[in-house]
C-alpha cells in the first residue's frame, strides 16, 4: 500500500474503532438510524469541509466559510420571506453571490500576493457584517417548498435518507470527480505540493487560485442553503466558528495543512468522526458538551503529530536514496 494512503486508512480505522467501541457500550449506537442521522445532521458541515479540503490541498486556508454560511442563509431568507421569491429562484442567486465573493478573495490573493489567512479573515468580517446589516433578527421561513423539501426522502433499514443526505452524496461525488478526474484537480494538488514547480510546469496559477476560493465560497453558500432548510430560518449569527470545525475535520481526515497531500473521502470521514464523538457524548448522558471540544482538540493534536511522523518517514527514505 502506498504511504500516501496511510492517513486516510488510519482515519477510517479510527471511525470503525469508535463505532465498535460505542456499540459495545450502548445498544443501538451503530444502528443504521444513528449513522444516517449523522449524515443528515452534519451535511452542512461536510459540504463546507469539502470546499475547505480543496483550499487546504492548495496550501491555503479559508476563514470566511462560517460567515458565508450565515450571509447566504440571511440572503435566502430575505429573498423568500421579504420579497416573495420562490426558493428555486433564490437559491441560484445565493450560489452566484457566494461564487462572486470567493472569486474576489481569490483574485486579491493572487493578484496582490496577499496572504490567504488575512484576506479570508477580512472576508469573514465582511460577510458577517453584511449579514448583520441585512438583518439583525432571525428570519423564520414559512414557505411550503421548504416543508416539501424537508419532508422528501425515504426510509432505509429504519433510518431516514432525506434531501440533505442525497445532496451530500451528490456533492461528494462531484468533489471526488473534481479532485481525481479533472485537470483542475491536478492543478490544485500541484499548487499545494510546490507552487514554484507548478508555475514552471505551466499550471495557470491565477485561474487555479481563483477557482479554488470560488469553489470554497460556493460550497459554503450551498451549505448555508442546507443550513437554512435545516433550521427553516436565516440568522446572521449562525455558523460562528464553523470554519474551525471544517478545518479540524479536514485535518482529522488526513489532509496535510502544508498542502499537496490528502483525499476528499478523508474529509467526509473526518466530519463523521466529529459527529460520532458528539453522538457518543449525547448517548453517554453524564458527560458535558465541553468534552466535545477537548476530544476534538486532542484528536487534531494526535493526527498532526502522527502525520508529522509519517512525513518524517518520507524524509528519511528520500535521504537514503
Amino acid at each position, binding site marked *: 500500500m502506498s504511504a500516501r494512503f496511510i492517513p486516510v486508512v488510519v482515519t477510517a480505522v479510527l471511525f470503525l474503532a469508535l463505532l465498535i467501541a460505542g456499540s459495545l457500550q450502548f445498544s443501538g449506537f451503530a444502528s443504521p438510524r444513528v449513522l444516517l442521522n449523522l449524515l443528515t445532521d452534519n451535511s452542512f458541515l461536510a459540504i463546507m469541509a469539502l470546499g475547505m479540503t480543496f483550499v487546504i490541498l492548495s496550501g491555503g486556508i479559508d476563514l470566511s466559510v462560517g460567515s458565508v454560511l450565515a450571509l447566504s442563509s440571511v440572503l435566502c431568507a430575505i429573498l423568500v420571506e421579504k420579497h416573495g421569491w420562490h426558493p428555486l429562484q433564490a437559491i441560484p442567486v445565493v450560489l452566484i453571490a457566494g461564487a462572486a465573493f470567493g472569486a474576489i478573495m481569490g483574485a486579491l490573493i493572487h493578484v496582490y500576493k496577499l496572504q490567504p489567512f488575512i484576506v479570508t479573515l477580512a472576508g469573514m468580517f*465582511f460577510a458577517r457584517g453584511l449579514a448583520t446589516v441585512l438583518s439583525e433578527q432571525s428570519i423564520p421561513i414559512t414557505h411550503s417548498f421548504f416543508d416539501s423539501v424537508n419532508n422528501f426522502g425515504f426510509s432505509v433499514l429504519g433510518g431516514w435518507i432525506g434531501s440533505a443526505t442525497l445532496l451530500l452524496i451528490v456533492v461528494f461525488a462531484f468533489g471526488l470527480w473534481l479532485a481525481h478526474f479533472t485537470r483542475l484537480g491536478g492543478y490544485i494538488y500541484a499548487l499545494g505540493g510546490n507552487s514554484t514547480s507548478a508555475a514552471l510546469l505551466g499550471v495557470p496559477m491565477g485561474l487555479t487560485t481563483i477557482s479554488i476560493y470560488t469553489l470554497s465560497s460556493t460550497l459554503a453558500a450551498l451549505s448555508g442553503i442546507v443550513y437554512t432548510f435545516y433550521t427553516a430560518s436565516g440568522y446572521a449569527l449562525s455558523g460562528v466558528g464553523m470554519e474551525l470545525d471544517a478545518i479540524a475535520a479536514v485535518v482529522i481526515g488526513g489532509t496535510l495543512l502544508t498542502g499537496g497531500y490528502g483525499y476528499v473521502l478523508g474529509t467526509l470521514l473526518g466530519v463523521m468522526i466529529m459527529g460520532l464523538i458528539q453522538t457518543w457524548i449525547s448517548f453517554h448522558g453524564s458527560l458535558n458538551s465541553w468534552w466535545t471540544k477537548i476530544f476534538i*482538540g486532542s484528536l487534531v493534536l494526535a493526527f498532526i503529530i502522527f502525520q508529522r511522523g509519517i512525513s518524517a518517514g518520507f524524509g528519511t527514505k528520500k535521504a537514503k536514496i
Partner: protein
Amino acid sequence: MRTIQLFDSRFLLPVVALALILLTNLILSPEFFHLEFKDGRLYGSLVDVLNRSAPCALLAIGMSLVIATGGIDLSVGAVIAITGAVCANLLNSSIDSISLIVLAGLFVGVVAGAVNGGLVSFFGIQPIVATLVLMVAGRGIAQLINDGQIVTFQNPAFASIGVGSIFGLPSPVVITLGIFLLAQAFVRLTAMGLFIEASGCNPKASSYIGIPVRTIKWSVYVMSGLCAAVAGMIITADIHGADANNAGLWLELDAILAVVLGGASLAGGRFSLPLTLIGVLIIQAMTTTIIMSGIDPKFNLLIKSLIIVTVLLLQSPILRGQIRGFFARKHKAENSAVVESQS
C-alpha cells in the same frame, strides 16, 4: 535623515490612517477629545479608547513576536479564558494571597505558550494547526475548570487590575504600557529582536550562523502566552468573573489584524512593536468612532473589513507598482502627445 526615511517607509501609512480616524472624530464630534480629571483619574473618550484596547494591545505585542518568526498564535483567546477560569476559581478558594493568584495566572500562560512553542519548534508542526489545537480545546478546558458556569468573585484587590487606576490612568493602560516598554527594551536593547527577525526571515541560514532558532521560536510562543495571561487577568478583573465561552472571543483575530495593519508581513522577518500598537489603536479608535458618529453599530464589522482591505491593498507593493505604472504611462502618453504636437 534616518528618522525621516523610517517615517517615510513604514510609519507613514499606519500613522496617516490613525490620524484620519482621529480627524473624522474632530469634525463629527469634538467632544471625543474632551478630557476631564475627576476623583483622581482621567476621564474621556480618548482614555476610553486606550482602556478598551489594552487586552488587544497585550495580545498584539506577543503576536508581533510570533508573527516575526513566521508563526501565528491562534490560541491566545482560549488562553485568556483558561487564565480567567483559573484565577476566578482560586479567588473563590481559601488562597488569599493576590500575588500568588497572579503568579498562577501567569503560569497558565507560560504552560500554554510552552505547549504551543514545543509543538511548533520541536515537533515541526505548522503554527496555524499547532495553536488551533489549543484554540479549540482551550475553551473546553476553561469550561471544565469553571464546571460550565460563569464563575464570579468579590475581591476588590484583584478587581483593581481591571478597574483601578494608577497615576490617574486606568490600570490596564498602565500595565500594557509597562509591558510594551519592557518588551521593546528586551527586543531592541538586546540582540533578541534581531534574532527573532532572522529566525523568521531565513531559519536555515540563521541556524548556520549560530542562532538557536528552535529556542527562539519556542520562547516567542511563551511570551505570547504570557501576554495573553495578563490580558486574561485584566478582562476577568474588569467583569469580576470568568466567562469561559466569551472571554477574549475572537480577540486573537483582532490582534493578528493589528500586527498586519502595523505593516508586518505574516510571512515573518520583521516587526515593530510601536507600529503594532498603532494598529491596535486604529482598530479600537475605528470602533469607538463608529459608535460616536451615530452610525448604527451593525455597520461596524462591514466598515472594519473594508478599511482592512484598503490598508492591505495600499501596503501591497504590487498595487503601488500598478499605480506608479498607470501614472508613468499617462505621463509618457502626455509626453508623446507633446512631442507629436511639436513635430
